[in-house]
């Protein structure tokens, strides 16, 4: 087979799939193997971004963009924020003991074998996609979220299948997010209110000569902490 025919035989979709799949899996393994928590965060970002690429390749453009925006752009920024707040020198790298690693390797190998066995076990899944090409659109997804299904029935589904909208789950998720938002705001407020009392207590316990100095430094320390926490909660 000459180079040109070999190139012509390449399915570019598959090539891109292999590229993104390799990146996603490679960085996921790197997250496990890395000890430095900041590097772990970086690898996780890259792994999740590559997964977004996989979603685009599967025709789920909205999910891919959602993954980039909420997961990578929101959740992981929050996570990196947490990493930075706690990344004091001794905690940047916490080593895992060798015994744990070996045990984890054995468990991982068996779990992976099980999952791969399951993935290859169904014959229909192994057949290459028939590529029914409808231009991907986000509108049916949006309509489904407000309770109206305008998409066609899933390919190959029985004609009697029930196709429900998603208004109720959508509302539940909205309320859930609101609760989380309020909770986060509450946590940030509680920290700020406690600050003056902590200083008071510190001042009353220590001797007068020291207290001036320590109050100053403590105020600075708690001030920084509360500023960071309130920043983080946003």
């Amino acid at each position, binding site marked *: 087979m000459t180079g040109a025919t070999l190139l012509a035989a390449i399915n570019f979709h598959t090539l891109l799939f*292999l590229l993104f799949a390799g990146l996603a*899996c490679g960085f996921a393994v790197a*997250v496990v193997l890395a000890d430095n928590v900041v590097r772990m965060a970086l690898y996780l970002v890259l792994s999740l971004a590559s997964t977004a690429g*996989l979603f685009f390749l*599967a025709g789920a453009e909205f999910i891919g963009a959602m993954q980039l925006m909420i997961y990578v752009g929101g*959740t992981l920024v929050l996570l990196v924020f947490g990493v930075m707040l706690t990344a004091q020198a001794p905690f940047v790298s916490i080593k895992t003991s060798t015994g744990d690693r070996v045990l984890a390797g054995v468990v991982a190998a068996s779990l992976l074998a099980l999952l791969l066995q399951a993935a290859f076990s169904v014959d229909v899944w192994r057949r290459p996609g*028939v590529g029914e090409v409808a231009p991907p659109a986000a509108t049916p997804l949006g309509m489904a979220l407000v309770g109206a299904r305008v998409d066609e029935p899933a*390919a190959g589904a029985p004609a009697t299948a029930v196709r429900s909208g998603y208004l109720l789950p959508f509302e539940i998720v909205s309320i859930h997010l609101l609760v*989380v938002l309020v909770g986060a705001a509450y946590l940030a407020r509680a920290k700020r209110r406690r600050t003056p009392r902590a200083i008071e207590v510190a001042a009353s316990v220590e001797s007068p000569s020291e207290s001036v100095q320590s109050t100053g430094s403590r105020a600075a320390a708690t001030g920084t902490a509360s500023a960071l926490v309130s920043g983080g909660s946003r």
Partner: protein
Amino acid sequence: MNLVSASWLPPLFAAGLLGEPVSVTHYLVVGAILFTAGIVCMAIKRNALGVLMGIELVLNGANVNFVAFASPYLRGEGAVSLGLDGQVIALFVILLAAAEAAVALAITLNFYNNHSTVDIDRADDLKG
């Protein structure tokens, strides 16, 4: 047609894997690897944030499977596709993962404030 199962290990350049369209199984393999990596990450990391990252990986692995089953492109001959349902579930997983991460992060930061460490092996106050 059956190249995936027959020759998974031989080099990718044997245009067999490169020449065939992607099937659902390809995505399931990726999902399995992400899932396993996440489980291991949750199990062996002693940094609380590392455990959180493991959870994210597990959720992501599950999402890959949902999207694969929902995709009209990957559906094999005679298979049933999840259609829009799979995408909606993936969407909810992403949203709830965001909420879950916020709460877990708040717990971690409180733990850090009280114990001055993020090593979860030191969280043994309730030990009898």
